């Protein structure tokens, strides 16, 4: 048995991903230890979302190796996917079903037990319990995002993947999200996220990884300490939208 301290939650070796003429990841190497909150930074097109999608096993890689908790993804059965929970860019919900129906359906897809209790707990944790019998179509984008978060948390995954989870959330929901991420870290679980509120993310993260043109540009285990350096690596000359400067 490998000790918790040395085990890696994510290990990516020389991963390459091309979309037609565009090279998105160009031999990226990345190791993330268990129990850390990592924030992925980088300009648009740097490969953050693609990396998250690869870890979520939605996107296949052209070459290289990726493993999650020691399991190689290319040789996985579907069970490996139970290790991860993902909130990606779109909420991925059935608009004409209620929150409860959506969560019930996905609970079945994850073969979960005690579904009613589980849904009650999770919806309370993300603060959506009062509208549980409303159709998803009637909810705001931020609210839908919280439903998506509930779905990702329901099966209690080891690795939580969050692609800009704060988008559309009000300040109260953001602090609730911080609490969830904090609980995750305390439970010895791992979080990998992207963000558009960089300053805030650097405060809550244990590690910041700056992606630059399909490669790791900077990997800092002390994000609040290396703030200036990270911001410089992340936005080299021109400021992109959603920038860190306030």
């Amino acid at each position, binding site marked *: 048995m490998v000790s918790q301290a040395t085990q890696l939650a994510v290990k990516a070796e020389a991963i390459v991903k091309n979309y037609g003429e565009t090279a998105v990841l160009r031999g990226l190497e990345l190791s993330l230890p268990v129990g850390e909150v990592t924030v992925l930074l980088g300009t648009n097109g740097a490969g953050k979302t693609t990396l998250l999608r690869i870890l979520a096993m*939605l996107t296949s890689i052209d070459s290289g190796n990726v493993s999650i908790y020691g399991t190689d993804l290319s040789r996985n059965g*579907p069970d*490996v*996917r*139970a290790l991860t929970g993902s909130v990606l860019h779109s909420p991925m919900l*059935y*608009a004409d*079903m209620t929150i409860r129906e959506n969560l019930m*359906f996905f609970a079945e*897809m994850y073969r979960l037990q005690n579904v009613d209790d589980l849904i009650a707990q999770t919806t309370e944790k993300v603060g959506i319990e009062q509208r549980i019998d409303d159709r998803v179509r009637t909810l705001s984008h931020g609210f839908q995002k919280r439903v998506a978060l509930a779905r990702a948390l329901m099966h209690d995954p080891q690795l939580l993947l969050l692609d800009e989870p704060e988008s559309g959330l009000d300040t109260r929901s953001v602090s609730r999200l911080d609490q969830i991420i904090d609980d995750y870290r305390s439970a010895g679980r791992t979080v990998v996220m992207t963000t558009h509120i960089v300053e805030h993310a650097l405060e809550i993260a244990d590690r910041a990884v700056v992606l630059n043109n399909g490669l790791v540009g900077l990997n800092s285990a002390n994000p609040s300490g290396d703030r200036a350096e990270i911001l410089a690596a992340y936005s080299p000359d021109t400021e992109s939208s959603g920038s860190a400067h306030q």
Partner: protein
Amino acid sequence: MKGSLAIIWAIGRKDLLLEIRNKDVVVAVAGFALLVVVIFTFATDLNQANAKLVGPGVLWAGIAFAGVTGLNRAFALEVEGNTLEALMLAPISRDLIYLGKALGNFLFITVAQIIVIPVFAVLFNLVVFRWEMLAISLLTTLGFSAVGTLFAAMSVRVRAREVMLPLLFLPVVTPLLMAAVESTSHMVNGRSWSDMSQWLQLAVAFDVAFIVVSAFIFQHILED
């Protein structure tokens, strides 16, 4: 095994629930097929002999073309909200997603036929309420859903999806379409099971081949 059937049924039932709320697919298929049948009653002189001659072809061509519309719509619904990706995130194998979606499509096209076939029987004055019709209809719908679900999943990211799906789907299902038309033709001419047995066997072979191959192949379709 039992768990797998539960997953397939859960996906099919979810599609059914959404269909009951929206009626997107069944209305499209039944409406389109009905129009084909109705328009053909004007396009030909429907005396008893003509009806027997062209009726089966009109019915199944109508259902095939209408089916394409429905299959397109059914898969588009799963893709519009990116929910297909949510299914792909779940720890279930891809063949279960395929079989679940195919089950949904099978149910929709079956319901559409329950609406279309009686109207066809009235307009063409043909006796179709027989056990043979049930067998033909089930076998044909099974094959349509098996191939159609696969091709619909492949076409969702294509620029001209509405054009691409029929171009892929119709030539591949031609043998099944021939089987449906010929068996129905035997039936309206009052022949027995044994006359149509070769065609029904062909339909069974088609269905088995494509359900097995599609379930096996489906995992290659979903990842980008």
